[in-house]
Structures are given as C-alpha cells and as structure tokens.
C-alpha cells in the first residue's frame, strides 16, 4: 500500500487526555473528509480504543492521520505507533474473547470491526503499530486542492483545548526540571568528590604536621645530646693548646700537633654552632622561644658586637665599621635575640668578604630602628636570593664547588645554612622583619633588619 501519502496530522500520545484529543481530532478529520456522522463516530471510537492502549500499555506513542491508496481505493489511514512492550496474546485479543481489566477487552477486535482496513504489527519488547483505514466516501473528491483545503482547515482549528498547550508547556518544564536535577546530581557528585579530597588533604596535612613535629623533636633531642660531648672536645682541645706552647723543643712534631688540635677545635666549635642553631630553630618552630625585652642603648649593643667580632675581622683584611645615623631612642626589646641576629648577619658578611669592609648602620624612623649590614664581598647570585632564607640552604658560589678551601676547611665553614632562616624567624618574633636589600655578584650584599623600638608582646605573630 504505497503510492502517495499526505500526512495531515500527528498527535503525540502521553496522557489520558491525549486519548480524548485524538478521538476528537479523528472525528473532525473524518468530518472534513465528508464521512457520515455514523462513520465519524466509528472512526473516532476506533482511534479512542487504540490510543488508549498506547497510554495504558506503552506510556507514549503517536497517532498519524493520512490518506493512502489500497488497491484502487483511497483510504483515510490512522496509524498509531508506540515503543511499548508489544502485545502478547494478540490472537486471543483479535478473536475478542480476551478479558481486559481496564477496557471491555474489545478495544482491538472492536476497532477492527469498526474500520474497513486493520493491520497490527507487534513484537514483544518492540512496540506496536496499528494501521487502520476507512474508505473515503464517494462524495469526497480526492484532488490535491481538497487535501490542501483540509490541511489548512486543520491548522486553523488549533488545539482542541487549552489543555494541549498547558501540557506542552508542562512537558517542557518537566524536561527542564529533569535537566536541572541532572545538573544538580552532577554538582552533588563533584561536591562529594571535593569533600573527600579535602578530607584526604586534611589528613595528609595532619600527618605532615605530626611528621614535622617528630622531626623537630628528634633534631632538638640530638642537638641537645651532641652539645655536651662537643663542649668536652672544645674544652679539652683548648686546654691542650694552652699547655702545648710551653713544651717547646718538640719542634716540627709539636707544630704539626698544635695545628691539628686547632683544626679539631675549630670543627668542634662549628659543630656546636650547628647544634645550637638547630636547637634554636626547633625552639622557634615549637614556639618555645620566649622574648625577654630589656631597655638598652644602641651603643651598648654595638660595643658588644664590636668586641665579639673584631678578632674575626682582624684576622682578615676586613674593616668592621659601626655607624649610628642621627638620634636613636633607647630600645626596649630582647637584646640577646637582636644581638644574635646581627651576629649572624655580621659573621656571614665577614665570611663572604675576603677583603674590604663590613658596615653596620643604625637609623631611626616611624617608631622603628633600621639596621643595615653591608659588605663588599662576593654577593649572592640572583637565583639564590630567594633561597637564602630557607633552612639548610647553602650558598654555592661556582668557585667553591668541588674545590674545598685550602687549610682543611670543610663544608661547615660555609655555614650551616641556618643563620639567615633563624635570624629572620627571630626578627619576626620581635615584631620586625629581615630582608635582603640588595646584592650584586662580586660587589657585595646589603641586609636590612627593621625592628620596632618598643617590643609589644601582644603583636607577636605566628612564625
């Protein structure tokens, strides 16, 4: 049955109300094709039966209305399709002795009786297609203009009732809602994933913190334990050195021994310094370091430092200069810690300045003292400038690498990589800041320490 098909109308079937719409449409269309009122009712009733089955058993489907030629006759065809579970007891149903719970069990068999043409295709799980037709009445002239007129008329009729439109809108809203809830679900999933990730990160952070604390405790313990034997070594070597020069006459051998004991002592001192530095670091990390502020004059500080460092500077061809710029009020802060910071800065400056001068200036402004330590030494490479405040970082000038300085000097002579980080932490503990002001490779560096004149314990920041 194929020739030309004019699909006039399609109705989507999803709800009970669509059954009503379908049968009313069917009746209108039948009327337009000039079927008699009896035939109109029959067609509409058949459509009602078949579309109801769609709603009942498949949930959704559609009804198409078109004209087709079967044999030499023109038929009004209504094809109702769905994607439902199909019909199982088709033969029984067709015979009309099937009892349905909802209908009269006469839907399909009855519809067949009402129509001139009836065909049903169904496969379990594959849906059902019912094609039924009624011969067009002889009064209808099957011309293109007629079809055109009917199509136009159908378009004009518009929806059978406002329900159609509301339903359409509802469907769209439902679809939107579905999409929204889909998105919502996705978001929820993402959220859950993020939460669990967050929890994991938190766990890891906790672990790291524990590990860090353990490390610090370990370092603290070891450094503390090392200090006692080191002190013994230093004391013993000192006493050996003090006694040796008196026993001259050993000549060459004695000189050699004195030199070696000196090296032992120097190494021990450096080790002790390292142990002290580590201990300081762990104390600061643990927040155990207490600030003990005292009132003092900057001159006192300078003279102490001068006394401490003059010998080191004296050994080299380095000039150590202390300078006070303008009036500086008396300081109220932890003298020991300030002195430790400046000592670190100065010993660094002296260490990296083979010859030239190291200058310490102190200035005052805005309630703050500014110490600047400038040297004319090696300077710091640009790529290292950000690293020098990190623990255990050691300056590695190209010259040093692989070429230990003469005189048995070892890596420790370059510092333990703790001085600057400790100094910065101490500076922050005192409410101030320590930074590298400038450094030019080969020309020297300049560090700046800014401290409040008056230490206010309340403003103590976490370091």
């Amino acid at each position: 049955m194929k020739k030309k098909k004019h699909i006039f109308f399609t109705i989507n079937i999803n709800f009970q109300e669509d059954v009503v719409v379908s049968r009313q449409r069917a009746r209108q269309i039948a009327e337009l094709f000039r079927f008699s009122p009896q035939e109109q009712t029959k067609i509409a009733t058949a459509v009602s039966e078949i579309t109801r089955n769609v709603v009942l058993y498949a949930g959704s489907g559609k009804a198409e209305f078109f004209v087709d030629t079967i044999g030499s006759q023109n038929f009004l065809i209504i094809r109702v399709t769905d994607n439902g579970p199909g019909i199982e007891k088709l033969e029984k149903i067709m015979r009309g002795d099937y009892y349905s719970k909802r209908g009269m069990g006469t839907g399909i068999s009855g519809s067949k009786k009402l129509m001139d043409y009836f065909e049903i295709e169904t496969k379990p799980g594959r849906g059902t297609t019912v094609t039924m037709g009624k011969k067009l009445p002889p009064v209808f002239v099957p011309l293109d203009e007629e079809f055109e007129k009917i199509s136009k008329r159908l378009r004009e009729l518009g929806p059978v009732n406002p329900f159609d439109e509301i339903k359409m809108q509802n469907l769209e809203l439902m679809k939107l809602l579905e999409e929204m809830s889909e998105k919502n679900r996705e978001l929820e999933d993402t959220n859950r994933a993020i939460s669990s990730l967050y929890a994991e990160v938190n766990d890891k952070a906790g672990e790291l913190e524990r590990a860090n604390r353990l490390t610090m405790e370990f370092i603290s313990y070891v450094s503390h334990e090392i200090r006692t034997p080191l002190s013994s070594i230093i004391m013993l070597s000192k006493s050996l050195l003090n006694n040796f020069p008196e026993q001259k006459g050993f000549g060459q051998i004695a000189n050699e021994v004195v030199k070696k004991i000196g090296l032992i002592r120097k190494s021990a001192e450096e080790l002790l310094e390292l142990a002290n530095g580590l201990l300081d670091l762990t104390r600061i990390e643990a927040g155990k370091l207490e600030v003990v502020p005292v009132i003092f004059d900057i001159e006192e500080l300078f003279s102490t430092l001068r006394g401490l460092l003059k010998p080191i500077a004296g050994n080299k061809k380095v000039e150590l200069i202390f300078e006070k710029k303008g009036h500086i009020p008396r300081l109220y802060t932890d003298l020991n810690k300030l002195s430790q910071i400046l000592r670190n800065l100065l010993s660094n400056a002296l260490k990296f300045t083979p010859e030239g001068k190291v200058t310490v200036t102190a200035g005052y402004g805005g309630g703050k003292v500014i110490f600047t330590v400038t040297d004319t030494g090696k300077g710091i490479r640009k790529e290292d400038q950000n690293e020098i405040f990190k623990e255990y970082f050691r300056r590695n000038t190209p010259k040093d690498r692989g070429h230990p300085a003469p005189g048995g000097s070892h890596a420790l002579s370059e510092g333990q990589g703790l001085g600057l980080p400790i100094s910065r932490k101490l500076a922050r503990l005192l409410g101030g800041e320590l930074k590298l002001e400038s450094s030019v490779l080969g020309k020297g560096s300049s560090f700046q320490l800014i401290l409040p004149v008056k230490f206010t314990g309340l403003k103590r920041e976490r370091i």
Partner: protein
Amino acid sequence: MEHIPILKMGEYLLVSIQVDMHDQLAITLQNDLAEKIAKTGAKGVLIDISALDIVDSFIGRMLGNIASISKVLGAETVLVGMQPAVAITLVELGLSLKGMHTALNVEKGMQLLSRLTGKDQDYTSRKQ
C-alpha cells in the same frame, strides 16, 4: 480536580455529561455517583449522554459499572439521549450495555425511572 455535576431532583439524581470525558473523569463520575446515592438514598439515576459523539469501550464499561453499582445501592439507572451513531458503534464494538435501562430522551427516561421505582410520579403529564 474535574467533576461531572450530579443534580438531585426529588428521589432521583440527574447527570448530564456535556464534555468528552477522559478516562479518569469517567472513573471519578462513577465514584461520585456511588457516594451520592449512598448519601441521599436516591431511588433512581438518570444519565444524559446526548452531548457525547463518542462512547468507546472504556466509557461504555464505566456506564455499565455505574448501573451495576447503583443497582446494588438500591437505585435504578436509565441512560438517555444516546446518538444513533453512538448506538451503532457500540453494537459494532460488541457492547450491548446489557442490564442497563435506556430511553430515547430525558422525558421518556423519567417515565421509565418512575415505573422502575414503582412510584408513578409523573413529572410530565398525567394524561396518557
């Protein structure tokens, strides 16, 4: 929710179906009528379907159910005003609405109800 109005007139209930009912509406009508009969103790129900172009198997079954339920509740049901085309279609469909009283129009339906309920109340004319 939509309802088909049910009017009480003396001992009778009148239902005039003016809209093409979807299935749920037909079920609602069946339930409403059962409630109303029980509540009012009506002796008869008159259902006018003159406005219906289409009565398919489901609506046919619902009408049959209404008649059966009414009977059990002590009321007679008369269906009136069925269009000839509907009647033909119902018969072809294989539904004969057995056990249901029918009448051509409301007037005849009321007479039938009076007869059925044994009270010869004549709402139209006593001359006959």
